[in-house]
């Protein structure tokens, strides 16, 4: 169908869907009026049952921990999938970026920008580590902290150049960390089976709420997820940067 026909069809269909959504949304309880009994129960119990102060982390890594396992693997699949999609194909080759003119070379990064990059990336690494390790105390956790850690790589690239950032992205190490982080979650879950409890049970000592080490397996899971997410996003950075900077069609 022509573009105009498509847009006309879409307008009608979207109007109908808008009515549908309106009916559905209209049946929701008034905004802000109540939350479910399930949520109230968890808000009340999480601190005493799991010795954590961040209930969202307790839900993600304990009460509904199996969901987070699959969520972590969604990320792993996406990273593996993207590296499969962006792999160098048989008619492509890797060439480092070079200046076309023979008597010139690409200027090195300016010292001011370089300094800014060093400062910012160090800061990001620190904040990332803090977010990962304090997930059971304050909002944060493995996913959020892992992304912050990986963004340090992007800052390094922005402040320097491809050659420099490549040194911070050793592919075998990153892939291994990705794999270890993902399988680590499964192995921590198996700990529960070993002591005769259910998979992903919280079988490590719970500690005292408010301390850094509290919540049993929750900080451990935060750690492995943080490793996996950071490594995953660093691999992504590497893959996309390769595509833009380095991979070229093989010249005949």
């Amino acid at each position: 169908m022509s573009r105009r026909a498509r847009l006309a069809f879409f307008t009608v269909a979207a109007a109908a869907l808008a009515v549908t959504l309106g009916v559905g949304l209209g049946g929701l309880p008034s905004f802000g009026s109540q939350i479910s009994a399930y949520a109230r129960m968890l808000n009340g119990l999480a601190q005493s049952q799991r010795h954590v102060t961040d209930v969202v982390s307790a839900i993600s890594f304990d009460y509904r921990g199996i969901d987070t396992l699959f969520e972590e693997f969604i990320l792993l699949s996406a990273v593996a999938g993207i590296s499969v999609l962006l792999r160098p194909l048989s008619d492509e080759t890797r060439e480092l970026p070079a200046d076309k003119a023979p008597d010139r070379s690409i200027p090195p990064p300016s010292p001011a920008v370089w300094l800014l990059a060093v400062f910012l990336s160090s800061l990001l690494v620190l904040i990332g580590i803090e977010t990962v390790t304090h997930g059971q105390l304050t909002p944060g956790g493995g996913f959020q902290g892992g992304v912050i850690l990986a963004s340090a790589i992007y800052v390094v690239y922005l402040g320097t150049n491809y050659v420099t950032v490549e040194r911070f992205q050793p592919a075998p190490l990153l892939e291994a960390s990705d794999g270890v982080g993902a399988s680590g979650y499964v192995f921590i879950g198996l700990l529960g089976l070993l002591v005769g409890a259910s998979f992903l049970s919280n079988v490590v000592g719970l500690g005292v709420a408010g301390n850094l080490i509290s919540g049993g397996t929750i900080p451990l899971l935060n750690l492995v997820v943080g490793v996996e997410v950071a490594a995953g996003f660093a691999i992504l950075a590497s893959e996309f940067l390769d595509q833009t900077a380095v991979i070229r069609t093989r010249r005949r």
Partner: protein
Amino acid sequence: MSASAVIPASIAVPLAGAALLAGFNRLLPRWARDLIAIAVALATTTLTLILMAASAGRPMIYWFSGWRPSAGMAVGIDYAVGPLGASMASLAGLLASAALVYCWRYFDSARGRHHALVLIFLAGSVDFCLTGDLFNLFVAFELVAVTAFALTGYNAGYPGPLQGAINFAVTNSLGGMSVLMGVGFLYARTGSLNLAQIGQALTGRHPDGLIVVAFALLTGGFLVKAAVVPFHFWLPDAYGSAPTPVCVLFAGVMSELGLFAVIRVWDTVFSGLAGGSGLRIRAVLLGLGILTAVVGAVMALAQLQLKRMLAFVTMSHLGIYLIGIGLLTPLGLTGASLLVIGDGLAKSALFLGVGVLQHQRASVSETKLRGRGRGLAVTGITIVLGALVLADLPPFVSSAGHALLVDAADQAGLPWMEIVIALSVIASSGAVLRAAARIWLGWGDTESSDADTGAADDPGEEAEGRSDTAGPERTQDQGERSGQQRRVPLTMVLPPLALLAIGLGLGLTSGLEEHAAVAAATFSDRAAYAAAVLGTHSGSIPIGARIVVPASPAASAGGVLTDLGQVLAALCVAGIALVRRALRLRRILAVGTGWLRRLHSGLVGEQVTWLVAGLALLAALGEWALH
């Protein structure tokens, strides 16, 4: 205690295996990667088979992280393992193993990450089939989807697979969003994410606008995955250009998971609603099923690109499964589940056979392959046998499923359904048989007046020494020469034959229909399920008395004759499609269905428009049916 450890093992094993394969792929030699992947897939299959046997009497409930329900409120996430779900999970494992064996020594430029993606796909499918939590169902849905998107675009050097992957990703992602909104609505109303608990909360209530919309969004989102009209436009694009072993997984398992979710959510959550009419919901689902079956069959006949043709054949059969499910009776579900298993094995064998053709003859175009099937006799037999099994050749297990499905339709007062099903099956199998006749026997016109359907761009499949890109230097001759020198490796020939043999073996197993009937009855019993999950004690009717299975339908003369008649008719269709005298008939049919073919334009904007229209339509139909 050991039986209950099998349940988490069935997902822990493939997940851990996949993570280690992905993480350490550079350290492992090629043979180790293949071997580990196949071993993990086989182990998972074994575990799910054990679960299928162990849960035959009543569902096994497993609570993760040790959180058992308190006061009828579910706190954690549970798996509710039943024989129906476990058998689907076993099918997934079996097909994944077959696909990985087929991949032996190929698909290596991805260095083991391809294998990891297949294993994660498998783990997601197992979770999907076993879970008792609605949000976990969504997460598994997305996990299967993400791995599938990546696997579809594997041949990234060709625009066909890339476009197929994009269409697939955009439409199914919107389907996932629709499901999530439905989940949100149900949570807002019932305060729970547990299927049993939501079902309990909705039992006996009259559905208002919110519940109807939640039903439409949930069902519509899952129907996108199941490629039911009008959500189906992405399927031929994706299945027609994905690598062959991946198509095995898609056609055999992934689309069926969408239908599984529809009936699961219906049975556990919505079936207890008061008011409305079961007959009207049945009419909606049956209507969609019939439409899908017919459109799939017609489009399959019009295809000259083999994988795209098989994609439409798959879609047509999905319509038939939806008919079985849409009858909303345990007998219908029994028939549909046996069909899913039997057809899944046959479709996989067909795709693997076409893969051999692609590997050896460098083409999947029916017209370009005309007469070039010589030397590939085993593959020819595989494809012909697969098509006949899809046409319900007795005594394969599909014919048992077909017989039960027809019985269920009769019991529901819809005897004409048998004719509809027969026509679509005959047409879709006839298309495959026509292709086989053209390729192996050289039948059909030399200059085909049937327009070649734009299959100029054969998605090359990665194999030893073959280019994975559509470079300009790849000529037809070069492809032919390199192909005919090589023998077909055993790892490509044996898996499809093995799958067909399993289909035959299952069909010959006595008592299979009874087991399937019990499984379906367990699946459909909402009250007993809720009691088992939430631990409340309420009476339930003993399962066995629920449905009556005809004594041995496959052996009944009438059933066998009908099935053989279908097979014969399919062969006739293949003949008519090739004989010169029927040229005018074919031209008239081509013109008559031209509008339908033009609708399948492969443009993602149009596909999304149809999706939006479909969701709105489903909501309107749901309002009519549930209110």
